[in-house]
């Protein structure tokens, strides 16, 4: 039996949305308040969905301790209370939540091998959420 397990995490970080490919006026027009050169912050909620056959001996898709351990050491410790613009992942891209989804998906896809990664979903605020399923079809 195949099941999908989703775990929610939180971290807080600052960012500034600014593209070197745009003029100053275009940056302001595109990003508005998010273009403030001093940056601003969010409490991000990250949802990670993994899937797989439920192991008969453990009743689990994967051991939650492994997933929590990976996310804490490889994601939360690196991203929590940081300015996203200063991280190497965003050296060449704007730290929008769309790009944050892609970055986190890539870290999980490369490093977390105990279950199949299905989806990364971010809530930037209670009003905005973003998700990335890789090349997979959205279920349903």
């Amino acid at each position, binding site marked *: 039996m195949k099941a999908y397990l989703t775990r929610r995490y939180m971290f807080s970080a600052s960012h500034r949305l600014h593209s070197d490919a745009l003029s100053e006026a275009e940056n302001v027009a595109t990003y508005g308040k998010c273009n403030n050169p001093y940056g601003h912050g969010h409490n991000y909620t990250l949802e990670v969905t993994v899937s797989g056959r439920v192991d008969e*001996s*453990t*009743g689990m898709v994967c051991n939650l301790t492994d997933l929590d351990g990976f996310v804490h050491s490889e994601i939360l410790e690196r991203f929590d209370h940081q300015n996203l613009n200063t991280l190497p992942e965003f050296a060449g891209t704007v730290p929008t939540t769309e790009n944050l989804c892609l970055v986190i998906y890539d870290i999980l896809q490369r490093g977390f091998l105990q279950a199949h990664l299905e989806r990364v979903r971010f809530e930037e605020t209670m009003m905005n959420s973003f998700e990335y399923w890789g090349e997979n079809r959205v279920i349903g």
Partner: protein
Amino acid sequence: MVYLTRKAEFSASHYYHNPKFTAEENQRIFGKCNNPNGHGHNYTLEVTVKGEVDPRSGFVVDLKQLKETMSREVLEALDHRFLNKEVPEFFTQIPTTENLAIAIWQRLSPKLKAAQLHRVRVYETPDLFVDFYGEA
């Protein structure tokens, strides 16, 4: 096709233990969840059904019937129970959230007539949930 989701809550206790594992293996794999006296959760269940909208009623499913089916087949069996000791599925299976979602699907699926079961989602806590779509 329209999808309709009904939520319900139940509270139950459980513990994780595989008799084929040694005591050390059980402790290493299941950690705090291996305490044989059990521990509990407030579970939130979401049942999603799908179907065409009936032109006469405007319904995918009669919500009253769905609610009654969920109550009879799932909540009465699971609410305020020690899953390992009182729910037959878990006499032999470990009552993880994965197996709970599968067991709830298997209880509901044959009892739903008008609409087709699409998804069972079980929240063990607000930051952990499992989805089951009936996939083998």
